């Protein structure tokens, strides 16, 4: 009642071992690809660190980097094992390691899947981080004389030029903050004083935007100040004028940029996951086929390979029993009247015999 039983002749086994050796080496390369994808994402996020608020988004590239490195190691070991599997005598030294190796690799491939899914789930956190980060950056745009913030103006300007965006959600964000430093305001001028008095916090607010919001494709020289005032400029209607400033908000632009990167990375990681899973299946078949050959005694004979020896339910039951008996091993058996001096033999690692059923509970002798 094995799961997906396949017959293997000697030549088939040898060929499988060789193919798996090559595939494992390809998997080492895909591990390197995973590592470099993680590194790339980390670099991209760090490039715009100043515009992101402190949020937990570094875990995604870190996970990809770790998974990539581990994949290289595991597949390197897998390559060595498969190379030795062609020769039955060399297989003997890997026999005991192979099953734990397969179990570990199985859990590791699920880590790869988790990594791929995390790439898609990161978007929400990223949006929040960008929203808060950009709001702060716009607020500190004018503080070019404050240490730690002096390059924020240049960063925001270059961002708006490069990503063709203006403000957080739109250009109107600039109307709500003071983006001209007090050093460049003539406090004796009436207009300046009026504007400062016009709001509660004493900020110099105006309906103008920095030059970096100007749209290069506009047929008209850029209108940056008195944007909402139609009569301030000739032949101008701010409601219908689409091309004067960049239409998008920078949060939207940056989110699109990162989502695009993460979707491509997520897709690549999914493909790598499928590839790793198939390599793992091959290794499992090879392991079971070789173990059966050893059991039959004749190294050149045919043997069966399978994924699981019994059906899923049987295997689950057997493993649960093993775990339960492991637990019993450490507990004192109450059938001996709680006397710790009586030696109760551990039945947890006993072989089950040819019919593969757990033994019926034996009456304990006190």
């Amino acid at each position, binding site marked *: 009642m094995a799961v997906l039983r396949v017959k293997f002749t000697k030549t088939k086994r040898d060929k499988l071992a060789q193919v798996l050796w090559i595939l494992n080496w390809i998997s080492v390369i895909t591990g390197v690809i995973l590592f470099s994808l993680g590194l790339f994402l980390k670099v991209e996020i760090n490039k715009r660190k100043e515009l992101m608020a402190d949020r937990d988004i570094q875990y995604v590239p870190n996970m990809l980097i770790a998974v990539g490195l581990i994949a290289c190691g595991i597949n390197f070991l897998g390559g060595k094992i498969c190379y030795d599997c062609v020769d039955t005598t060399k297989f003997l030294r890997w026999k005991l390691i192979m099953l734990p190796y397969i179990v570990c690799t199985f859990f590791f491939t699920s880590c790869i899947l988790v990594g791929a899914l995390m790439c898609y789930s990161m978007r929400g956190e990223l949006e929040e981080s960008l929203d808060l980060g950009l709001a702060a950056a716009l607020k500190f745009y004018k503080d070019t004389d404050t240490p730690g913030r002096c390059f924020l103006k240049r960063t925001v300007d270059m961002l708006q030029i490069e990503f063709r965006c203006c403000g957080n959600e739109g250009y109107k964000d600039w109307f709500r903050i003071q983006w001209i430093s007090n050093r*460049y*305001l003539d406090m004796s001028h009436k207009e300046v004083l009026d504007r400062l008095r016009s709001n509660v916090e004493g900020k110099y607010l105006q309906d103008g935007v920095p030059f970096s919001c100007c749209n290069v494709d506009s047929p008209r020289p850029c209108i940056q100040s008195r944007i909402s005032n139609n009569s301030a400029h000739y*032949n101008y209607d701010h409601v219908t004028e689409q091309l004067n400033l960049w239409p998008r908000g920078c949060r939207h632009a940056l989110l699109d940029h990162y989502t695009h990167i993460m979707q491509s990375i997520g897709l690549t990681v999914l493909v790598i996951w499928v590839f790793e899973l198939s390599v793992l299946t091959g290794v499992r078949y090879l392991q079971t086929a070789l173990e059966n050959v050893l059991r039959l005694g004749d190294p050149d004979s045919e043997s069966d390979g399978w994924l699981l020896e019994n059906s899923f339910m049987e295997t689950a039951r057997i493993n649960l029993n093993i775990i339960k008996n492991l637990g019993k091993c450490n507990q004192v058996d109450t059938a001996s009247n709680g006397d710790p001096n009586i030696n109760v033999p551990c039945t947890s690692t006993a072989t089950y015999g040819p019919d593969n059923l757990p033994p019926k509970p034996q009456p304990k002798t006190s």
Partner: protein
Amino acid sequence: MENTEIHVVPNILLMVGLASIGTNWIASRVCQDSLDMSRFPRWKGLLLAWFAVATLLCCLLVTVVILSYALQGRLEESLKIGLRNGIRFYKDTDVPGRCFQKETIDRLQMEFRCCGNNNYKDWFEVQWVSNRYLDFTSKDVKDRIRSNVDGRYLLDGVPFSCCNPGSPRPCLQNHLTDNHAHYNYEYQSEDLNLFNRGCRQALTDYYMGLMNSTGPGVLSVILIQVSVILSLRYLQTAVEGAMASENPEDDSVGYLLEKGLKDTFEDIKSKAQDLLKLAQVDPTTGEACPEAEDEKANNGTDKAASPTPTS
């Protein structure tokens, strides 16, 4: 750019690159066949032509290196005229054929961090705001238009693409020469507000940088080609010497030129003269009048006898 003369440099490089794929592939076949005595002779006739072509390619490469430095002046001129036109037609976003000049110049200034042709003052001499966006009833506009002969709207302002993002101050684009128009502003000492470089200088630097970085590559390719030509010549002469001698397995001598340089030159000169004389004798006999043919036939033997001692 005004003209495309500078295109000769990359065009030659492309041509030489493609041609050398062919010549070097032939050279590799020749070398492979030189190991086998029976197959080498079929290349004999081709080799002279190959040497000529390969030497020509090397000379072309050397020309490219020289040209890339010599054409710098022409490149600068071309850029100067082209940029001047671009700045002049900046405002003509409604004229077909010129509607993208504004976008091109804006992108150029932002990408190369430059302003105007030589510097930002070039924008003061040109009307860069289109008449469609000027209110001709306004006094200020009328004053400005009347202030110059051509009736252009000139102002001491620059487009937004001249603004330097690295400036600590929000960009000042208008009334640049008026210190009182802006608070705490002195245009003589303000150097971070706009980009300082002219676009012509920026573009020339960029292109010369490109050509300087490809220079070492081209020089190394020339060296490799020359060494290939010389080695193939040695191989050819050595193999021919071995084939000519009785024992092909024996040592043979390889050389670049059979005789000394001067002698080889004399040889080639005399061969060329022979070829020319051969070409000259035939037309003169062809033009001879049919009446004088008999006379010529009588004197033909004498004529044939006389040139031979002197050649």
